């Protein structure tokens, strides 16, 4: 393949001929749909030099080299349009507003195509939909923006990414995240939140094979192609934006924690003497005022009331007051952009300070970007896209204990005081104060990421473009974590310690493509792309620790009494790829697209290094047919595609059976079995079928699309279980196949469309039906960790597998369970676990409802997001509401509904019956995750052109206020947007399966100003 490609390059380069210089002039007028002239629209040559701007009457004149065959017309808020210019011409151009996407350009893979040329399913999210939001990672901002794209925030931690699923979870264990390409090169997942969303021009979501298979082995779960902003022709634009907001944690829905009095009452009913009461009783016994052996149950009532009142008056009450904080977000951004016939440039700087809502947490980011393109000659362009970001984060612990501030809210009783009598933070019954921990055990993480590419482009023979690009995403982490001398943790552990840790991750991609584009006669257009790519990732990390620092003011390890760890490690992967894409159309009516890619990866077994991927796509523009005479319909296009893509998201060396040498015994190196070999390990492959219809009616007043897809994943990468008797639990293998299929519908309509008032309503809906089709052996029947979820042929992936709860026996107040045979028992037995068909953590439907209203200079928009069909194991509810097992920590008021006497129909068992004081995983705590939220609401004022014209220095002004997650409706007990269980409980790997004190999602109000100079 490589040789053929080289030969092709060679032939083409030898055949290059000289071009004679000549010019032609194009004039014309640019207007909107209603015919009003558009002043300041840009007309630029495609594939060469020359551009012009329209005057107040919308007129322009442009001189071009004769080889220029196309010009592109652009105006902010309207879709770009490309027009063919042959010879001298006068053009009458009508631009349509952005929402009618007929003529926009789409960046798919390695080239830019007109919308009409795209046969695959591609959703485009415009940068303006993502700009100026108080959420750090653009991945979370994608929620609800496109059909088939499900974005679930991993948590509400500032800078947290979203789990993104394009057309369902196509993988089980290998990551189901899409590949993310920024300006033509792949970036690491760690770098997603290092991108400034305001720099994004647009994101193209490649959903089906026709669109994505050119990315081959990494495209199985879709591809997000991000293009950052370029300078636009016209006068330089200087823009300043300011934004300030306040955020709070979302409150749990449908749940209320007991207050101090309620909790003490509950404890009393259960006969539980808490340690504070116990020490009060002990003091009275010691003083001789109470008899020995007094407990809460036989304490005189007056005394008990006194104790209770004491506790309530000194108690913290609502611990969230102390463990949470109001988050402030502040953003400043300055950008300059512009273009002339040689240079295009875009320069931006952004500073974003983001306090989290857990006490002491923050995430501050600074980004800078410079995108420059220089047309050196008629035939040679070169450019660079360069961005550098820095973040500084105070990492607060996130795990299932009181080191996690958020978990502490559900661990610290309301009657426990915040401070001890000597003014220190109270460690509470749990023995640890996370507030003190946040202050005295800071964990500061700084990251620097660069996204840089340099490219050169040669145009020859009118039709050929050769492009070479070297893109690199370089990410570093520097972490300093300090358990300060004198801190509570240092006292518990018996030593203070400092950890300096970090890593460097270089992911680079070298891409070479040749693109031949030609229209032959009137009827035939071809567009052929061939290319080759090399991708490599190099990861290096270090870890240094020391103990015994003399005092908290010394923060570097040179001051440590005992160095305890000095460790470095490395790992690498590489990918070699060849690819090609060909598009043919007949009279812009019938389109055919073929693409193929060969990838070779270092990650797979020696027997399966290389794999091929392909796709075929077609589309039919029905409105171009002579028989089609419906005037009201101005776009009707049918598309279909089929093809394959792969997934290589597994560990770097998973095919190799190895012994590790990194373990020690008696501080000496030791060799320990690390992994079982699997030389047959091969690619997970996705076969994707898509059929879709796009339409626009009534002068594009109503637009929409309907898509159906069927995605089949084969050779699922998953740990293959082995008997524990082998000394291993599993190895990575290919275990079966699954299918995702569903419908996607999107509709948008202008309800009112006048000169001053515009009201648009849009709805999108996606559903996804996931099913395991085949498991090659029973070895994959259980999840590798935990036993909540199972894989079973015919069921949804990760269907819950639990003992079924049969309620409380009204006669004796004991829990009852169903045996598999349907009989009811009071004995819990893990062997009686059963599958819950249809209930899995996977979302079955989701979408958004949006409305945009603009009247003169004011605009109001709202976006609701809904999602449902998934089930969540609600551990947060289980820990706070059970049959007396956790009576020592805060409980939800629900538990008062416990069995008290025969005949009671209670939800909780008799907590006085010790046999019931134990909580089992049953479907009692398995809850539906349906919800709808007001994701975003914005009210803005944009100064109109007339007023702007009167101002001397200002060319534009916008003021706005926006609310994020202001309203949420759900029947789920808690917060239904569940991503990760929490950042540190990494063994619970199935996203969305359990709630376990992840950083809560925020609600926020922000205010912003945008000024153009």
């Amino acid at each position, binding site marked *: 393949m490589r040789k053929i490609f080289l030969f092709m390059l060679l032939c083409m380069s030898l055949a290059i001929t000289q071009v004679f210089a000549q010019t032609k002039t194009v004039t014309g007028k640019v207007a909107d749909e209603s015919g009003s002239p558009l002043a300041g629209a840009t007309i630029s040559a495609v594939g060469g030099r020359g551009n012009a701007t329209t005057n107040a009457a919308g007129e322009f004149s442009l001189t071009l080299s004769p080889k220029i065959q196309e010009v592109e017309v652009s105006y902010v808020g309207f879709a770009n349009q490309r027009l063919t210019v042959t010879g001298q011409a006068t053009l009458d151009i009508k631009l349509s507003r952005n929402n009618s996407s007929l003529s926009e350009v789409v960046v798919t893979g390695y080239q830019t195509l007109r919308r009409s040329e795209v046969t695959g399913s591609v959703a485009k999210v415009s940068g303006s939909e993502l700009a100026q939001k108080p959420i750090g990672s653009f991945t979370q901002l994608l929620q609800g923006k496109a059909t088939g794209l499900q974005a679930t925030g991993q948590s509400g931690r500032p800078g947290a990414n979203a789990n993104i699923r394009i057309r369902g979870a196509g993988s089980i264990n290998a990551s189901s995240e899409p590949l993310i390409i920024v300006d033509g090169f792949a970036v690491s997942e760690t770098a997603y939140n290092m991108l400034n969303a305001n720099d994004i021009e647009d994101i193209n979501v490649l959903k089906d094979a026709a669109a994505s298979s050119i990315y081959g082995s990494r495209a199985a779960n879709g591809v997000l192609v991000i293009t950052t902003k370029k300078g636009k022709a016209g006068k330089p634009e200087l823009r300043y934006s300011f934004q300030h907001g306040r955020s709070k944690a979302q409150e749990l829905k449908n749940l209320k924690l007991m207050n101090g009095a309620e909790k003490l009452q509950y404890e009393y009913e259960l006969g539980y003497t808490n340690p504070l009461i116990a020490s009060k009783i002990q003091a009275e016994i010691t003083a001789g005022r109470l008899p020995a052996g007094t407990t809460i149950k036989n304490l005189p009532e007056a005394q008990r009331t006194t104790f209770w009142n004491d506790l309530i008056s000194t108690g913290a009450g609502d611990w969230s007051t102390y463990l949470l904080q109001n988050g402030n977000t502040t953003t400043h951004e300055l950008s300059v952009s512009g273009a002339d016939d040689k240079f295009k440039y875009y320069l931006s700087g952004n500073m974003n300070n983001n306090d989290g809502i857990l006490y002491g947490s923050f995430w501050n980011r600074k980004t800078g970007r410079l995108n420059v393109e220089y047309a050196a000659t008629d035939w040679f362009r070169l450019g660079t896209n360069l961005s550098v970001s820095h973040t500084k984060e105070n990492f607060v612990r996130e795990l299932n204990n009181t080191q996690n501030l958020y978990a502490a809210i559900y661990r610290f009783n309301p009657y426990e005081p915040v401070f001890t009598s000597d003014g220190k933070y109270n460690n509470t019954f749990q023995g640890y104060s996370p507030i003190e921990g946040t202050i005295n055990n800071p964990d500061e993480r700084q990251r620097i990421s660069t996204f840089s590419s340099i490219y050169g482009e040669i145009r020859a023979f009118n039709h050929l473009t050769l492009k070479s690009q070297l893109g690199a995403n370089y990410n570093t982490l520097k972490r300093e974590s300090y358990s300060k001398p004198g801190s509570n943790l240092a006292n518990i552990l018996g030593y203070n310690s400092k950890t300096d840790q970090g890593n460097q991750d270089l992911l680079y991609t070298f891409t070479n493509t040749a693109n031949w584009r030609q229209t032959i006669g009137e009827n035939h257009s071809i567009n052929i792309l061939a290319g080759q790519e090399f991708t490599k990732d190099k990861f290096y990390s270090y870890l240094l620790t020391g103990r015994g620092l003399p005092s908290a003011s010394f923060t570097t390890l040179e001051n440590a009494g005992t160095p305890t760890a000095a460790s470095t490690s490395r790992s690498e992967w590489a990918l070699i790829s060849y690819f090609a894409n060909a598009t043919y159309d007949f009279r812009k009516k019938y389109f055919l697209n073929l693409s193929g890619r060969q990838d070779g990866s270092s990650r797979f077994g020696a027997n399966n290094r290389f794999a091929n991927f392909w796709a075929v796509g077609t589309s039919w523009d029905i409105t171009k047919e002579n028989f089609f005479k419906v005037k009201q319909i101005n776009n009707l296009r049918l598309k279909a595609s089929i093809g394959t893509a792969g997934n290589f998201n597994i560990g770097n060396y998973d095919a190799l059976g190895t012994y590790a040498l990194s373990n020690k015994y008696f501080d000496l190196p030791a060799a320990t079995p690390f992994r079982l070999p699997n030389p047959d390990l091969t690619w997970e492959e996705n076969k994707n079928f898509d059929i879709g219809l796009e339409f626009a009616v009534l002068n594009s007043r109503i637009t929409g699309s309907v898509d159906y897809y069927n995605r089949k994943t084969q050779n699922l990468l998953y740990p293959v279980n*082995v008997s524990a008797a082998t000394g291993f639990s599993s190895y990575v293998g290919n275990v079966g196949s699954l299918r995702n299929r569903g419908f996607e519908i999107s509709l948008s309509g202008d309800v009112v469309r006048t000169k001053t008032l515009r009201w648009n309503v849009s709805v999108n809906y996606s559903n996804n039906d996931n099913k395991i089709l085949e498991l090659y052996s029973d070895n994959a029947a*259980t999840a590798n960790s935990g036993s909540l979820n199972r894989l079973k042929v015919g069921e949804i992936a990760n269907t819950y597998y639990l003992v079924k709860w049969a309620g409380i026996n009204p006669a004796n107040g004991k829990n009852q369970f169903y045996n598999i045979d349907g009989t009811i028992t009071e004995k819990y037995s893990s062997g009686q676990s059963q599958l819950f068909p249809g209930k899995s953590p996977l979302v079955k439907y989701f979408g958004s409802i949006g409305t945009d209203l603009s009247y003169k200079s004011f605009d109001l928009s709202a976006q609701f997001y809904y999602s449902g069909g998934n089930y969540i194991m609600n551990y947060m509810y289980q820990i706070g509401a059970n049959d007396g097992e956790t009576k020592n920590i805060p409980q939800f008021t629900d538990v008062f509904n416990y069995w008290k006497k025969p005949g009671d129909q209670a939800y909780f068992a008799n907590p006085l019956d010790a046999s019931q004081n134990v909580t089992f995983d049953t479907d009692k705590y398995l809850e539906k995750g349906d919800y709808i939220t007001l994701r975003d609401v914005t009210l803005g004022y944009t100064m109109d052109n007339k007023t702007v014209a009167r101002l001397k220095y200002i060319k534009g002004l916008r003021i706005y206020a926006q609310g994020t997650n202001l309203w949420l409706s759900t029947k789920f007990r808690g917060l239904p947007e569940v991503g990760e269980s929490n950042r540190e409980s990494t063994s619970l790997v199935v996203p969305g399966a359990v709630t376990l004190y992840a950083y809560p999602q925020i609600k926020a109000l922000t205010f912003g100003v945008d000024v153009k100079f």
Partner: protein
Amino acid sequence: MRKYSYLYLTALLAAASCKKTELDLFPYNQVETTQSFNTEQDINLAILGMYQGIRNSGSYYSGTWNIVADVLADNLIISQQGRQTLKTYGEWRYTGNATYGLFSGGYTIARRANAILENIDKFSAGTFKDNAKGEALAVRAMTYFDMSRVYSKTYQNAGPTDSTVSYVTSTDPKITPGKEPVKGFYDKVIADLTQAATLINSSNPVGSGIGSTNSRFNKASVNGILSRVLLYKGDYEGVINAANAALGTTPSIGTLTTFPQIWTDASDAGVLLKIKMTSIDNVNTLGTNYYQTVSGGIKSEYVVEYNLAQEYTSTDIRKSSYIQTSAFNGIMYNNVIKYAGRAGQPAGVVDAKVIRSAEVLLNRAEAYYRTGKTTEALADLRTLKLNRYTGYVAATDIYAGEALLTEILRQRRLELAFEGDRFWDLKRRNLPVMRDATKGENADGSGTKYVFSTLPAGDYKFNLPFPQSEINFNSNFTQNPGY
């Protein structure tokens, strides 16, 4: 023509970046398994790997092994001020979904031994080969014996149909073994240990300082473990022989002076085998299983059961070595300080004692008694007590008949308390767990009492359930009765 040169440059770069060998990438910290047993050095690394496995297992010597048998039995009671850890065991509530992890933990260690045994025949006959084989056999046998103690009936209580885990001897990743009869299993353990005792070096030094002579198996410690297994089998002559081999002519079990130093790793007196926990390993589980020091006070998870605390008299050196009575939040508790840690080192980081000569001495004393050699039994008992009680006068400490056995077993409980022995020992002797339902966790016996106080002899809960995941996966394998 600059154009040409650009094109050629591009083509050249493209060609240079695409060698297939770029895909041959190997890890920096691993060796392929097939290349892991070529030299003696490889074997030495793999031997240390076995001990690293014991050190690394959350259900074994770096985990809850030093407390679980005491929590399951009647040596400890939960403190209401603790984190409510291990309640599953204290309240006998384990299920297949929440059970003791030694099943996979044990096989992980055994596999390391099996890999050595499968490869050792590549090496020429001699001391190196014999010792490596002996060490691997010993590690495997001890681990399997402990797995069997957790999950299955003991030899003397097992009938012909009672089964235990499979005695796996290969590293084949495709096996799905069932179970095997308890008695045959014990015979394999004993055969391996017996062979190990003949092959292994009398000394296997490792590292330096405390622990350098006893942090790997040697002849004495293999015999010590053998005496333990034979006691469970009821082969008392065998116990005496193995104990003699382990103890030598003058048993060193730690004196009144050195005994307290054993627990802070200042002395190795009487420790036949320990698993080294270095300050850099920083495994503090042994200590935190019992307590953490919070705000200057001991905040215990479990405290000494009231009646047991009374058994330690003030002249007993074990009392001050094992127990500290102190207040937390104004309430006095008998806290277990056996794993407090080494002086000036991280709290709770201390070597795990696998077998001590004091236990071997008690094994022998019991074996002597049960074979009618009461004089020898009494002598062993007195040797122990002389080294534990200040002012002990052997001549006046006389026991006969049943009282002698009772005192041997009482001393066994006092000596091995909080060391992972009690529950298995009750199971061996087919006794119930009888907890005092009238006593709470406070030092004076008040406070919160046991939720569940009795586990009848032979109850199915004496044999912990196997992990449900193995039963789901491995159709040859079945759950213990009752679960």
